[in-house]
């Protein structure tokens, strides 16, 4: 994952590169054009000077040819030729010449020259004067411009990068604070989030939208909880009526054995419905934080009472219970909830233990674990979900482990599941923040 600013940095860099690259030929043509113009002007000035100087010398015609030859010999940049008629017009040209002194003095092998041909008059005779001046070569100009441009490009990118780092720290500060708040948000806390005031329009809009969304979620969640609670409460009465009418029905003297069996089956299903309903109510109450008692709990006796309570089930499956107290954790909470927690964990172990096997319960200063034998690891993602079915589930308790999980959450304990050496183990960690 990239952060947002790195994403903008890349196109900025590419754009800067394109613009700067495109500027190289533009600069080159501009510089070259200025060069050529200046040199043409310069050549014209030289031509004028040559014409004036020669005329001022007042050299006679015989001597003039000699002088011009001499001039041509020692002035390599200019050349004077005798012509019959003056040139129709002046002309300019660019030319590359081999450097004859390259071997001797080094420098460029080939040089570019800008030439100017004009007609001068000396002693009423027409001469064609050629003036040539060395111009910087095209490639060299391009090279220099490219190097400078690249330098600027590097400066730009570095600048972008530095500014990005600073900006991401400063501008995004309120955003990160908002994000932190959202990460801490829990729907079942029922607390509306408030965000810091910001003068950035986008963040302000984000805050307004978030606050609206959150308050809506809270309302929905609240009404859903109320619905569950009300529905469960309202269900108690019809369930009670059904249960009691069946009890009365059993007293009918005309009842046949077949009808009796039907009533037993109905009663069984009713028991399940009633318990499910009670469990739903219990979950809602835990979520509504209706258990506020915080008293010291001694898990040992509660576990022993629970084992005692399930003695019939334990004997029915010929199970062994091994309860090791290695230490006593100093915990506080609601003892009623703790009993329910232990009951659910133990009944779960009893239900899933193979007959004649051993259930091991270990209590120490920081954890309480319950384990039973098994053949296959359970899906720990589904395990603590409400009404989640496991592969071998016959009569899905559905809510037992979800309740155990909620109770642990409520007390800030951690309930975890592990499967090793063919044993399912549920562990309550009482002080998860320390470990």
């Amino acid at each position: 994952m990239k952060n947002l600013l790195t994403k903008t940095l890349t196109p900025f860099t590419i754009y800067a590169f394109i613009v700067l690259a495109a500027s190289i030929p533009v600069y080159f043509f501009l510089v070259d054009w200025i060069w050529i113009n200046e040199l043409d002007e310069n050549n014209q000035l030289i031509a004028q000077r040559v014409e004036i100087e020669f005329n001022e010398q007042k050299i006679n015609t015989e001597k003039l040819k000699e002088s011009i030859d001499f001039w041509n010999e020692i002035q390599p940049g200019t050349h004077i030729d005798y012509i019959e008629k003056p040139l129709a017009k002046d002309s300019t040209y660019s030319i590359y010449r081999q450097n004859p002194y390259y071997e001797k003095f080094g420098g460029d092998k080939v040089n570019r020259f800008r030439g100017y041909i004009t007609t001068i008059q000396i002693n009423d005779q027409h001469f064609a004067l050629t003036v040539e001046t060395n111009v910087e070569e095209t490639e060299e100009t391009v090279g220099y411009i490219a190097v400078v441009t690249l330098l600027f490009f590097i400066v730009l990118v570095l600048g972008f990068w530095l500014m990005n780092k600073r900006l991401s720290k400063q501008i995004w500060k309120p955003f990160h604070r908002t994000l932190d708040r959202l990460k801490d948000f829990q729907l079942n806390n029922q607390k509306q989030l408030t965000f810091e005031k910001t003068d950035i329009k986008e963040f302000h809009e984000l805050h307004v939208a978030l606050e609206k969304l959150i308050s809506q979620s809270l309302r929905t969640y609240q009404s859903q909880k109320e619905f569950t609670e009300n529905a469960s409460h309202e269900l108690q009465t019809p369930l009670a009526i059904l249960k009691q009418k069946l009890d009365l029905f059993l007293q009918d003297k005309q009842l046949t054995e077949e009808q009796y069996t039907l009533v037993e089956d109905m009663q069984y299903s009713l028991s399940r419905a009633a318990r499910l309903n009670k469990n739903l109510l219990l979950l809602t109450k835990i979520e509504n934080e209706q258990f506020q008692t915080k008293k010291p709990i001694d898990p040992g006796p509660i576990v022993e009472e629970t084992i005692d309570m399930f003695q019939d089930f334990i004997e029915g499956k010929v199970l062994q219970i091994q309860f090791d107290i290695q230490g006593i954790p100093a915990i506080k909470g609601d003892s009623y909830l703790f009993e329910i927690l232990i009951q659910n964990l133990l009944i779960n172990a009893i239900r899933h233990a193979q007959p004649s096997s051993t259930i091991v319960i270990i209590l120490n200063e920081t954890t309480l674990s319950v384990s039973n034998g098994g053949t296959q690891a359970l899906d720990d993602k589904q395990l603590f979900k409400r009404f989640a079915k496991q592969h071998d589930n016959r009569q899905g308790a559905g809510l037992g482990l979800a309740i155990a999980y909620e109770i642990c959450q409520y007390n800030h304990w951690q309930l975890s599941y592990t499967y090793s050496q063919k044993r399912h183990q549920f562990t309550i960690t009482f002080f998860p923040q320390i470990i």
Partner: protein
Amino acid sequence: MISYIRMMKILIVEDEIHLADSMVRYLSNESYRCEVAYNYAEAIDKISYHTYDCILLDIMLPDGSGMQLLQELKKEPRDEGIIIISAKDALDDRIEGLHIGADDYLTKPFHLPELAARIFSIIRRKQFQNTNIVHQDGLHIDLLAKTVRYNDTPITLTKKEFDLLLFFFGNKHKVISKNTLAEHLSGDFADMLDNYDFVYAHVKNLKKKLAEAGTPSFLKTIYGSGYKWEA
């Protein structure tokens, strides 16, 4: 000597007609007479003119709270046994109710035999405090000492067997299903196991012990898996 010297009067305070009706029909027999108050006002009216042996009190009434009624009842010394009936399984309510002076607390939905057994125990406890012994054809059950004998032969029962015996005693002539017994013995977790064999095992042991002491077969198996205590 017969334990029931007179008819026991029970007041049922319950706004749900179907529930009140079921309770009346199940409980009314040669030893219990039931009256019903469908709301708070009626209940107040009845308790100010009559005394009862046991009052069943629904906490949520359309025109008042059962808790209030309980407080009214406890203002003057009365010796009715009071059982709170509630759709709420809240521990606080339970503690508050028992604290104010209720004798027992039942959460809806419950089985009628469960209610009958509780009423039986409470009336016995309230009215026969010193010699709380029930008899039937030579079978003596001491509710305080939790001992049983047939004529002069003591019968040693486990806690659960004794509990079952009392449960049957509170539901004489009634058909009790295995399901009801399972719920009585293991509460909310009755349906968590695949079968109710443990109920069968306990009842079988109880029957065997009673038979060994020579009692007539009071406890009958009916319709294959139901039970009935004959007196």
